[in-house]
């Protein structure tokens, strides 16, 4: 707490949370206790914060309104056929192909190659329900992962340069989507670190990497849409 192990009202406020959370050192606790024994105002502060802290711990779960489940259920049911197509969240069909930059097109080709590589590998996995990939599929997975990762590295600079040209809402939406995808990538990599040959985790990782490539492409293309087209600049 202090060099001379004394406590003042001001110092108590600074040390209050550690004191109440039980993370204050022995000497700091002793100094606060000594101060509380003589101070006329600090005991009330300590009691109030302790009451708030205690009440917070007693707050209980809150049941959501019944219609939330109905909405969740309806969306999940609607979602089922859509998942089969495994489209990225922001489809390129929604944005202008005119704006697609060359780097995005190259990365798109990489995406296709990587996908085909992986599909080939998956077809090579013998039985339905098998969760561990064979040696060939294992190697193909790493080829596909490297293709995706390379595409992401190449697209990232272009996407970073493109983002400031987007409006705040679009930028925030894209950023949020990238965060979600990065979370999925992290989860898949964690799972693979524990079980490198798990085919489901490999598929999850490639799905997530593919989504990231597509989203970075979308970012570049969207920024193109925000820029005036050359013919508009020079009518």
């Amino acid at each position, binding site marked *: 707490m202090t060099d001379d192990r004394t406590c003042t009202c001001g110092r108590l406020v600074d040390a*209050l*949370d*550690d004191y109440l959370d039980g993370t204050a050192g022995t000497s700091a606790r002793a100094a606060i206790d000594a101060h509380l024994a003589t101070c006329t105002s600090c005991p*009330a*502060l300590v*009691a*109030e*914060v302790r*009451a*708030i*802290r*205690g*009440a*917070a*711990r*007693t*707050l*209980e*779960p*809150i*049941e*959501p*309104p019944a219609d*939330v*489940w109905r*909405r*969740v*259920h309806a*969306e*999940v*049911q609607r*979602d*089922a056929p859509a*998942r089969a197509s495994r489209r990225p969240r922001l489809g390129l069909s929604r944005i202008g192909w005119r704006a697609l930059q060359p780097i995005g097109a190259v990365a798109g080709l990489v995406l296709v190659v990587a996908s085909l590589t992986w599909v080939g590998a998956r077809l090579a996995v013998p039985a339905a329900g098998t969760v561990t990939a064979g040696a060939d599929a294992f190697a193909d997975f790493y080829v596909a992962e490297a293709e995706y990762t390379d595409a992401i590295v190449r697209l990232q600079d272009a996407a970073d340069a493109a983002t400031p040209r987007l409006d*705040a809402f679009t930028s*925030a*939406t894209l950023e*949020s989507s990238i*965060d*979600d995808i990065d*979370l*999925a990538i992290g*989860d*898949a990599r*964690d*799972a693979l670190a*524990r*079980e490198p040959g*798990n085919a*489901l*985790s490999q598929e*999850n990782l490639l799905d997530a990497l593919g989504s990231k490539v597509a989203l970075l492409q979308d970012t570049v293309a969207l920024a193109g849409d925000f820029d005036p087209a050359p013919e508009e600049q020079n009518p």
Partner: protein
Amino acid sequence: MSADDLELARRCREGDAAAFETVYRAHAGRLFGLLTRMTGSAHDAEDLLQDVFVQAHRKLAGFRGESSLGTWLYRLAVNHCLDHLRGKHSRMARSTDSLDAEDAAEPAAAAPALPEAIARIDLERAIAQLPAGCRAAFVLHDVEGLDHREVGEALGISEGTSKSQVHKARMKLRVLLRGAVPRSALEAV
């Protein structure tokens, strides 16, 4: 991590609606409480809860059982909620600056003291009035019981900043709760 969780996740992946409803019923209350308190808005929390479970359904293929289903959903909900708050407030730090300016002003000397037992409803209302940044830290630390390191990791802030945000929230709550205490209750204390 229980075998039940893995079994439920497997059934959900296979499109078993009853299994997914079981997951929802088991965890929706805790997550809705968390989201309501983190956002300060039951309306926002309803939308977020819907998003979380729809996302969870999509991501269940990636659930490998390293943690319990509850922990997995909890992490998903916290991350989704923080995305929402970042989008809504641009940067969480900005929303906490306003509190810095007030620095959780001390209650006026003449203000009545808080009772030892604070009514839950009063506390819920007061939490909803906190600025978003310190509200999130307070909810995760004081309500959910995460330590400051975990709060820092969840919010993308340092452990020290988490401590400071929780402190500000507690001081601010003192002010808000004094306004909420009915006089009759005070006289009885």
